[in-house]
């Protein structure tokens, strides 16, 4: 079974974004970009399915394909996935923001061509915070989905997936091919070793465009403006617990 892992190049999670003064968008120039953290978790799970580990038998996945839709530099994101153990990459080069619906359509076309048994995506890209692409892809393919996964067990053409839901945990059994999206507790992604980073340089990346898949990536949402949220007037300190309680009661009025 092939496993497809879509990986997105996003602003590094340690960095705080700057809003452009003219409110036209955010300024990412000269900021470190990394693989979306949830996608690292997805790559890790797929690689374990191939190599064995994390409850998966070696060979459960025959091949791991990393796909990114984005600018030329998203190649680096794919290289990171290859260094973690993915076998090959596909870069669908698109400049500018691509909305989840267009990403899902491109991924559908890739699934039609590659016929994976499983697609593992992140539950959420930490830049647009959309939490949509996996579910959209599942709908476009008419495949079952198990989102927000904290455990995946494969057997007999099915995946038993434990999901992090409001209230606790839920387990579903989905027939393959299926879509899974990762939550934080699924695994701890590895750091690529230097030899593997070197090896990854030789692994193939297919270069494509959205037109190759016949997908129109024109945005459906027009950005009217991007603003900074109102600043909180924080920073005040209290010296003692007595003072805290007194202020909560008499100043803030919340007790």
């Amino acid at each position, binding site marked *: 079974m092939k496993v497809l892992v879509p990986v997105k190049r996003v*602003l590094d999670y340690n960095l*705080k974004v700057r809003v452009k003064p003219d409110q036209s968008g*955010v300024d990412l120039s000269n900021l470190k970009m990394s693989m979306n953290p949830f996608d690292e978790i997805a790559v890790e799970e797929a690689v374990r399915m191939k190599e064995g580990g994390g409850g998966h038998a070696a060979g459960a996945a025959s091949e791991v394909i990393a796909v990114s839709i984005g600018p030329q530099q998203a190649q680096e994101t794919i290289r990171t996935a290859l260094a973690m153990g993915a076998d090959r990459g596909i870069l669908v080069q698109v400049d500018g923001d691509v*909305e*989840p*619906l267009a990403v899902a359509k491109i991924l559908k076309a890739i699934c039609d061509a590659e016929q994976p048994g499983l697609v593992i995506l992140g*539950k959420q890209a*930490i*830049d*647009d915070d*959309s*939490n*949509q692409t*996996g*579910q*959209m*892809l599942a*709908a*476009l393919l008419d495949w079952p989905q*198990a989102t927000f996964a*904290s455990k995946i067990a494969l057997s007999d053409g099915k995946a038993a997936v434990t999901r*992090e*839901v*409001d*209230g*606790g*945990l*839920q*387990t*579903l*059994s*989905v*027939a393959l091919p*299926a879509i899974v999206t990762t*939550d*934080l*507790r699924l695994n701890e992604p590895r750091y690529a070793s230097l030899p593997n980073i070197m090896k990854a340089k030789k692994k193939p990346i297919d270069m494509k465009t959205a037109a190759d898949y016949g997908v129109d990536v024109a*945005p*459906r*949402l027009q950005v*009217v*403006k*991007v*603003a*900074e*949220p109102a600043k*909180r007037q*924080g*920073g*005040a*300190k*209290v010296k003692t*617990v007595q003072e*805290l*309680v007194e202020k*909560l*009661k008499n100043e*803030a009025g*919340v*007790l």
Partner: protein
Amino acid sequence: MAVLVVAEHDGASVKDATHKVVTAAKGMSGDVDVLVAGENAGGAAQAAAKIEGVRKVLHADGASLAKQLAENMQALIVPLMSNYDAVLFPATTTGKNVAPRVAAKLDVMQLSGVIGVESADTFIRPIYAGNALTTVKSTDSKKVLTVQATAFKASGEGGSAAVDSIAAPGASDKTNFVGEEIVKLDRPELTGAKRVVSGGRAMGSEEEFKKVIEPLADKLGAAVGASRAAVDAGYAPNDYQVGQTGKVVAPELYVAIGISGAIQHLAGMKDSKVIVAINKDEEAPIFQIADYGLVADYKAAVPELLTELEKAGV
């Protein structure tokens, strides 16, 4: 235009989030209907009919809807959309799971985590963990939204909408519900709570988390939350996680104990009315947004806080 709100409910009653999403819907249109999908959810349908400003309740009841699985919810909602211009879901794990499937089938781009309704086609939503707020206009013919309920006031009671029964779809044979472990709550639910007490990595163990956080929460009648670090380490269940990728809360009082205040955590609680932080590191970023910061070891401060609250008659 007509707007459909998909109710969050437990079969017997509707969750407060539903009342809040109805308010968001009213910002788009005067014709707001509520869909209650479930199994034996007649009580919830009756409760939805009482939400102020609701025109009609659609009640779909059947085994296929018992767990609101995404595939079956999609099969229910997509055909209904020939009668509606927009569908709104609460941004809960259920709503987030289902809404994009509906959007993709309608070939429209979804708006996630909406915190403001400017008009019937223009919305405000946070991006980058809430460090930027984007106002976007949807050019699609139909709108699909998940709504951050904490950003809206709850619609009141006092409505008397009619309840129409509609057919439940057949169940997908590709997905089966296997089981669930639902955390038993003796306290208010996190997202709707007026007060929240959260613990972080500093707790060091599950026992310590329980010993420190729970008595304080109980004293304040508060819900319990946690940072990702505390959840990852197993000190608290996953659904306690507050933050960019957990739950968003906006209580009147948020107390953060032994939490550093990473941007991902702040994203989930910075809209709280009053924020209290107890942390032994005076440089901890949480202090920048706290209204009342106490630089102290929680081990001494929390027991003292319990005593002082007692003295203050809380």
